[in-house]
């Protein structure tokens, strides 16, 4: 994809170009780009040594570790179950099919704070699920496991909604061809279907991961927020802000943003590469 579209040679027949582009660029710059640049400015002011100093705080390091680690775990779970969900929704027809299809987007529509307190109520030691789990000696609420649970909820739709359209477009002949060549069901899935849905799966995984790293509302209730145990990076930003340590808050934000953008860029590159290679044959 080229960053610069080609300039149209013909005179513009449709009016409003200057007005709409002007408003778009001005609004975007004022509302989004200028404020985001503040993070870069703040990080620049701190310099590498300043950021390094803040990073060397074990509490910061641990919070980042928890945020990235739990997001990775949750995105992995969602990759597996999201693929299964997409498969079932595309391939099977059963009573309630449409309802479930609509319900998949609940995590997008439900405010995160509501999800947070609902999950906490469920997984707390006296909650519906927490009670039976604590009988098994598993503690979910107020541990990193609780964070993973919240992030599974939040990230659930990403993989489903990425993989679903690709599975829908998959020509049945591809699998039939593999079957005539002697491939078993497992071989067909692993060697034919999985490679075909891999780019979409990767996209969904990454979006779930990126969302999980930055997630705040659904996590802080169930996490318990114990420093060095279950404290996430976004919460540490809030805490630093409340302590008026704006520099530290901005530094953590800068690190999170850099990593997130790097991952998104990487994914875009992988997508472009796979599109180029696979074409639409």
């Amino acid at each position, binding site marked *: 994809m080229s960053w610069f579209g080609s300039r149209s040679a013909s005179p513009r027949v449709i009016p409003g170009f200057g007005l709409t582009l002007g408003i778009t660029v001005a609004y975007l710059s004022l509302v989004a780009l200028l404020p985001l640049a503040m993070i870069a400015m703040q990080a620049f002011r701190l310099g590498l040594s300043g950021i390094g100093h803040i990073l060397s705080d074990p509490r910061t390091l641990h919070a980042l570790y928890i945020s990235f680690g739990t997001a990775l775990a949750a995105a992995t779970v969602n990759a597996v179950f999201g693929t299964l969900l997409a498969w079932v929704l595309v391939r099977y027809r059963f009573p309630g099919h449409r309802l479930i299809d609509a319900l998949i987007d609940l995590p997008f529509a439900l405010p995160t704070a509501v999800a947070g307190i609902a999950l906490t109520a469920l997984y707390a030691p006296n909650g519906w699920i927490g009670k039976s789990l604590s009988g098994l000696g598993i503690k979910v609420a107020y541990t990193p496991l609780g964070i993973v649970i919240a992030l599974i909820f939040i990230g659930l739709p990403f993989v489903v909604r990425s993989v679903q359209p690709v599975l829908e477009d998959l020509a049945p*002949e591809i699998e039939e*061809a593999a079957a005539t060549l002697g491939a078993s069901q497992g071989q067909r899935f692993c060697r034919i279907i999985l490679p075909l849905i891999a780019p979409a799966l990767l996209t969904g995984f990454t979006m779930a991961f990126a969302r999980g790293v930055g997630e705040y509302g659904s996590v802080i209730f169930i996490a318990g927020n114990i420093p060095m145990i279950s404290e996430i990076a976004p919460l540490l930003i809030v805490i630093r802000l409340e302590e008026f340590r704006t520099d530290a808050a901005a530094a953590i934000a800068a690190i999170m943003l850099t990593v997130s953008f790097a991952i998104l860029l990487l994914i875009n590159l992988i997508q472009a590469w796979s599109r180029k290679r696979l074409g639409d044959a």
Partner: protein
Amino acid sequence: MRIDIHDVYKAFEGGSRALNGINMTIADGELVALLGPSGSGKTTLLRAIAGLENPDHGDILFNGGTVAGHDVRDRKVGFVFQHYALFKTMTVRKNVSFGLSILPRKQRPSKAAIIARADELLHLVQLEGLENRYPSQLSGGQRQRVALARALAIEPSVLLLDEPFGALDAKVRKDLRRWLRELHDRTGHTTVFVTHDQEEALELSDRVAVIHQGRVEHMAPPAELYGQPATPFVCSFLGASNQLEVTVSKDQVLHCGHALPLPRPHSITDGPHQLFIRPHEFQIRSVDDQTPGILCRVETVRLSGALVRIDLRFAACGTAIEVEVPILDFERHPWKVGDAAMVTIRNVRMF
């Protein structure tokens, strides 16, 4: 391998009958075309042979043994799909070697042997040098040949092709057609292919089965199919035909007062019948020739390559017919619109 198909029925969801009592035998090493209009059931029949569809009734036998209950995987059929169904995440070589690479470890050849076999097949289909390309980087004809090589790699007992040339442009189509025939003669696989293109079916195959409404209308070598079609459908479906309503009484064929020739040999009962005459089976002469015939008037004249198509109307009752004249004859006698002409009939088919 010999294929016997006995009384096969298949209905689809919604109750429409795709196969309606199919019976046929395909001899070992034969190249057979399943020809029919779209929706005739020809593709369903091919898929039933492959095991991609399960018949509701009837039996399919490979070399005398039933394959009912045998999974697609176990039938060892080489199937080439209409749109090739290549695995786009794999290179050409990986596509071709797929069937061998998924064999259970005990039966699987060594990696080197698999590659050697794939390359040998790619040589056979004339695709050397493209081993490491992806399907998206190939032309339609090349993809078609990859699909063929991939199907041949598992050493299939029978090769099944669904509209093998349907998605290709006219020139590539012709080349591939000739090439497929040569390949068949060299490898000797029993081959069945589906087509809706009669020229393709007649030119390429040993025998053609015309399928209509889920039944075999007629199965015969191309010349017989064209010359002595078994049913009116086959006659009108294969090549152009002029169709005349006639009455037969006492060995006399009558159409608006003209006596027309009787098909030979025949077993026609008296009464109304349909007469089919191919455009090239008419002879057209000047009126002053004094020979007997049907007096007609020339309506249009169209040049079509080596042939000239002339539309005529019977002077007596206005029946319209289409006649084909070789260009050489036409140059000797250039017919013009409005000319009167005497038409005689050399050959007819009657049902």
